[in-house]
């Protein structure tokens, strides 16, 4: 069951009390977060590298049509067929038509977020084509009927025991008495199952981390090598990518690759980074006979026109979610969207409309950790605030919330009134709460106080203390 964005508050509450999920999420700070920190510490110039990454992405987006045309020209010259898709439905039709023309009954797929975004698997399966995810994490969640809970570690919400149970459920062709005592034995089993698929699939579908205008190449990065088998063994290779993936030159791609692996997993390079350029050449002994590239808009041109253009710099490393206290508390599924975490809270309203997704930009403390680690310096907090403002002006937030915010706004824009109320609250709250030092119950804050106490004010307001400090008055 894939949760919905519209029920985000309930999804989050359920996630908070899901002990299995909490155990899996507890590995994040010591895992991906610590690994990134160590990798970044080894490159003293990392900050300058981030600025360079931002500059490359901004420049490309400012000239996006030119670089797309250049990519198209080079890729076509290399023998690829380029397709353009305005939205998800267009893209599904194009990919299905290629598969149909190839007589495909089995498709293997590399890990690709955009194919999740356009709902490709469901469409192909509805049309009688078997689709098998080849990334191990994606394979596991595909078997479970789940969505990825993280953009680079899709099965991060699962433990080894979960995977063993799933493999025993789904791999019924293997003896039930087999031993699966460790991660190695589970990986070996998946490898054997997948090999058969790689060797018999008629079509391989991959995403693209980048498209290179200089050479007409698509770049994928994997640690498993599944993407390479996907785009080398089947007779037809389809690259599915959104239009924002293009970069001008090979050198630009190298700069972004330096940022990507370090930010994502703390590796300096993933095990396999591959530039694929068209189908097999004359005399080649392997590789696909045909190569198609599907360039998808699906809302990107709308984002390009306004402040959301900054979000199109994203290189999908996942660092923003790894470092987000909200993601760390509830995991990826609670967001109910393909892209979770801070970048998801910016992208999803752009893709699905803010009226369906108004909860997402509020799923942030605005602590700014996401911005601090973003390899291309996307102003995630500012962009989430933009969506909050649109949700507010579109009257999409709750009535109580709107009332409280309206009252707060009224007072906050009238300093003298605000000071008066603050003094009253500080003095009154201080007097009422002095005996216990904290409140356990307050009107309109029941939810907030269900898991914490509210410290009682100490009698004076921040402004009073500030003025005294400025005047040099000792407390």
């Amino acid at each position: 069951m894939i949760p919905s964005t519209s029920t985000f508050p309930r999804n989050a509450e359920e996630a908070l009390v899901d002990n299995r999920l909490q155990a899996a999420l507890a590995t994040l700070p010591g895992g991906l977060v610590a690994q990134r920190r160590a990798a970044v510490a080894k490159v003293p110039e990392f900050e300058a590298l981030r600025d360079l990454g931002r500059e490359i992405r901004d420049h490309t987006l400012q000239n996006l049509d030119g670089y797309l045309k250049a990519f198209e020209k080079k890729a076509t010259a290399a023998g690829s067929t380029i397709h353009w898709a305005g939205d998800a439905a267009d893209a599904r039709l194009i990919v299905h038509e290629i598969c149909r023309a190839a007589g495909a009954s089995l498709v293997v797929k590399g890990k690709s977020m955009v194919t999740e975004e356009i709902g490709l698997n469901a469409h192909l399966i509805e049309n009688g084509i078997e689709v098998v995810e080849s990334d191990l994490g994606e394979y596991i969640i595909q078997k479970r009927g789940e969505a990825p809970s993280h953009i680079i570690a899709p099965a991060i919400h699962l433990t080894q025991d979960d995977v063993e149970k799933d493999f025993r459920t789904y791999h019924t062709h293997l003896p039930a008495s087999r031993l699966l005592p460790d991660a190695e034995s589970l990986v070996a089993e998946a490898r054997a199952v997948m090999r058969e698929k790689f060797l018999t699939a008629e079509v391989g579908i991959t995403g693209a981390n980048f498209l290179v205008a200089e050479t007409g190449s698509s770049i994928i990065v994997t640690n498993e090598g599944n993407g390479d088998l996907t785009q080398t063994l089947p007779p037809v290779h389809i690259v599915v990518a959104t239009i924002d993936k293009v970069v001008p030159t090979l050198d630009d791609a190298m700069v972004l690759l330096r940022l990507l692996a370090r930010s994502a997993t703390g590796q300096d390079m993933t095990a396999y980074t591959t530039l694929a350029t068209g189908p097999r050449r004359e005399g080649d002994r392997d590789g696909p006979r045909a190569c198609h590239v599907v360039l998808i808009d699906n809302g990107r041109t709308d984002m390009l026109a306004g402040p959301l253009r900054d979000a199109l710099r994203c290189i999908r490393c996942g660092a923003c979610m790894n470092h987000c206290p909200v993601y760390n508390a509830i995991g990826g599924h609670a967001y109910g969207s393909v892209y979770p975490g801070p970048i998801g809270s910016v992208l999803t309203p752009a893709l699905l409309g803010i009226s369906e997704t108004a909860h997402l930009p509020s799923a942030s403390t605005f602590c700014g950790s996401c911005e601090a680690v973003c390899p291309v310096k996307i102003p995630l907090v500012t962009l989430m605030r933009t969506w909050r403002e649109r949700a507010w002006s579109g009257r999409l937030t709750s009535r109580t919330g709107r009332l409280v915010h309206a009252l707060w706004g009224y007072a906050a824009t009238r300093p003298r009134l605000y000071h008066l109320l603050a003094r009253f609250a500080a003095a009154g709250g201080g007097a009422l709460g002095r005996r216990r030092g904290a409140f356990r119950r307050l009107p309109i804050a029941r939810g907030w106080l269900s898991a914490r106490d509210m410290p009682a004010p100490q009698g004076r307001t921040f402004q009073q203390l500030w003025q005294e400090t400025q005047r040099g008055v000792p407390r």
Partner: protein
Amino acid sequence: MSREAILRRIRNALGEPPRNPRSRETTPPAPASLMSTGAASVARFIAEAEAKGVTLLTVREPRHIPGAVARYLTGLGGPAPRVRIADLGWPDVPWADAGIEIATGAAAPDDIVGISRGLAGIAETGTVLLVSSPGNPTTLAFLPEVHIVVLEQAAVAGTFEEATAILRATFSPGTLPRSVNLISGASRTGDIGGRIVHGAHGPRRLAVILVENKQGAVEAP
């Protein structure tokens, strides 16, 4: 929506002026902490690759490659099986003398060992760069359980920018072979409980044989 419609939407979204030239001619050099030259590049290449679990073997001449392969495979616990080998570009490499049966062409699903020819090494991260060609099939790097890359020591570059310069010097401007593979360690996954396991879909082991100098090459005085 057609190609023209998407391109028009982009143009409308960006507005005028239609072209923003780059503020710089080329990408700036790699960060200094990632740069190296000459002998330091070879040392860094070896250290970075070994840190990724890659086995590094150094031989003086191409004719020593089969012996190194045989010793490596014996060290893995078995006699040298048949190996699937790329065209390494050297005549008369004495495989039979080392007791190794070789086959050429694309890798078969049951191949245990694949040997590729590397175009360059990249010291920055201990990465090997392979390009596909009729004599150097891509599947050698992904289907077998053990992957071995033969690389001339002189082909070890410092950074990724140097590697792209090698690609540009080797192939016509704006073109690349079908597959350019940057390989940094054996196949691995962390998808089961976050623990790293090798041999996910590709090779469980990766070895690099560095050939110090070409057969017949004149040594510098």
